[in-house]
């Protein structure tokens, strides 16, 4: 699968929060996802990420697993507890079987190992956003 392959697009811009201690990743995803039409915010660690998520509405959170301080699983746990409808994609540069199973247990939408192909990332964001929209409709605004 290559990056410029056409994928089905949502009508509304997807709001994405990138939580990663690697500035390069934050820069790359902000640049790339904006080019795909997403609205991107970025946080440099777990605490900032949780704060950002609380401060604004996001459809999809892309969260690194291994971060100094609060790690990705802690962030995932808080987000899924506080905002169950937000879909979280866990990303790691050190993939292990435990990473994916723990992510799934904690309610992550999916898992991607670095270095991922951009196309795969975009597809997963689209899928996560679509699911978010679906679940939001089911639950209605009350759930917010």
């Amino acid at each position, binding site marked *: 699968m290559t990056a410029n392959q056409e994928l089905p697009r949502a009508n509304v811009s997807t709001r994405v929060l990138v939580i990663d201690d690697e500035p390069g990743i934050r820069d*790359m995803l902000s640049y790339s996802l904006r080019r795909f039409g997403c609205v991107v915010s970025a946080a440099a660690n777990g605490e900032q990420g949780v704060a950002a998520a609380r401060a604004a509405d996001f459809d999809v959170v892309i969260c690194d697993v291994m971060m100094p301080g609060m790690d990705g699983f802690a962030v995932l746990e808080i987000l899924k507890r506080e905002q169950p409808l937000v879909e979280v994609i866990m990303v790691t540069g050190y993939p292990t079987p435990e990473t994916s199973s723990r992510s799934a247990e904690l309610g992550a939408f999916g898992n991607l190992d670095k270095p991922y192909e951009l196309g795969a990332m975009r597809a997963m964001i689209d899928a996560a956003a679509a699911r978010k929209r679906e679940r939001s409709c089911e639950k209605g605004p009350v759930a917010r």
Partner: protein
Amino acid sequence: MNTKNTATLPLGAQRLYTVDELSGRIRRGERFFLAGDEALLRRLPKGCWIGGTIPYFMTGDGGLMTREEVFATELPPFATAADIRVYDAQSLFGVYRDAPDNGFSLLIIPAQCGTHLTFALNAPRYEGFASRPLIGWVAGVALPDIGRKTPKVFDGRDGRVLEDAAVVMHVSLPPGKRADIGLVNIFEAGDGDELTFEVDGFGAKEILVGGSRRGFAQYVREKNIDTRLPLVADCNGVMVNVSFQDVDEASGEVRFYAPVFKGVRYRHARPVGDYVEAFESKMSTEFDSRIACSCNCILNYVHASLEGRRTANITGPFTFGEIAYQLLNQTLVYLTIEDTRLADRLRAEAALRRQNQFLETLIGTIPSPVFYKDTQGRYLGCNEAYAELLGRPKEGIVGKTAHDLMPRERAEKGLQRDEEIFRRAQRDPYEYELETLDAIGRPRWMLVRKSPFFAPDGRVAGLVAVLTDVTDSRLAEQSLAAAYESLKSAQGQLMQAQKMAAVGRLAGGVAHEINNPLAVILGFAQSVCAGIGAEDELAFPLRSIEREALRCRSLVQDLLVFSRASAGDPFVETDINAAVSASLSMLGPRAKLEHIDLRVEQAIRLPKIMGSGNQLQQVILNLAGNAMDAMPDGGRIELWTRLSEKKAGHVEIVVRDTGVGIPENIQAKVFDPFFTTKAVGKGTGLGLALVYEIVHKHRGSIEFESGAGMGATFVVSLPVAPMDPA
């Protein structure tokens, strides 16, 4: 030993003849030493003979007295000269001096004459006494004629009859013959008083008993001394007898047949039970076939009742005194003529026998097997150790050849070596090692040393072999070599494992650090690319960046898998068929794409192993992936699972392809990390290293069979999980 026939005695040509018979032989020039009645001797013709009067004889038929026949001792035909001389009391002093250098002298002296007395008293003082063999006897008369007739001696050359002279025949022998004199004295000193005399003489009136002077006749009477038994003196280890002749009660004198000597210590002889028995026990059987001449004492004839009885094989006259160098009484004297060449040979043979016995003892004592054989390959002898090795008694080996004793092939091999040794004919040992089986079929290693031995003419006569059992050291060497090999292989495995572990640790450490920048590079490249057309001038460099980033990614992914394998997933009971099935979902699509016929065969109900399903999947994926890489133009992959036939308690995963194969020169390296034959970018060189690592983590083994153009078959063998005791 009681041979009745005297004719069997080769040199004992002595027997009784009639006068006519003997006369004829004398006339023919035969030479004789004679004993017989005076009247008969007078009738004999002149010739080379000497004689003396006596009518008592020991013949082949026993002792007898006769006046009808003459007892003749024929000189051996090989005697080169017979010089007859007559001596009187004065000239007898030179009897030894006149004797030939090699030969013997026969002597007869009439009893009781002056010459007899002189010889009896003085012989030990003669010039050259006992330097040459001198044997003879004292002539006498029939016992009833004592005092009525006088003993006489005869010089056959002219028929002279002498009453007071010694007639002597000096006989020369050729080189190679040697005469010797022996005597048999059956008497030994008794336990009675020690008796000494104050003067030399044939008689004595007084005697010293334990130093005190006594009347001799009175002493004999008081002590009731049996005068049939002689007085015995020890003369330098030889028992010399002096026989009683009579006791004159009137004068008090006791007379003897031989003189007693002043100062010599005598004792009365111990009684003899059975004379013949005593005689035979004393007589050395070895000599009797070589006796040329002998005589015994008349007193033995009389007192021991030898009439009609034999004394061993000895024949000869019974005389009034016996001479062996000097005068003796009641003693058997004899002359032997020895063939010195025969003697030399006999001595040599005896020495050889002793030597052989010594060698046999020596060989028998050697714990190593030893044998010797002739040039025909016949065993001449061996020791017990060799007999034991062959599992046969020694008697079953000597005289046999190798062909009789061992399998044909082994016999041939040994005989070929023997031939070579006989051909080389070099004294230094020829050495080789032999692997053989012992008597009960165990393999033995023998160090064989063979040396030829030589006949007197210098030709090879046979060989001697000594075998040293080196089985123990060979076995030790073998197990040492095996231990060394396994140590070497263990060391190799350890080194490989250490290399893998180091790579794994390194990979785990850097993977995370590399993955982030790679994600950034890949992400930017792909996002920019997505926004421009293929014709854009940036498309080419961006695509290159993307491709190289993907290449880095796959390297890092391999390293991570490696790292995880090294770190070790927890091992659980795992079904290898499940791992195969899981792999198929990934292998199937690629096989289809590359026109590869993927055939899978899974044995049912395979026992489970202890391991990691993920890692096993990795093994299968790598092996099958390599197989596909080896078949760029398509082909077939067979993938199957089975119970191992070679290793009990193991299951196997087999991956076989029809690809290009692995050339022999790189087969040793295929499991090394980073070794690859693939084009740049196509392989990291970690695939098989990882397989190796995982298989070893599972305590299994991996083998392959391949060659250039032959395809390759990899067999992974894994131990089955131990049975759950519950």
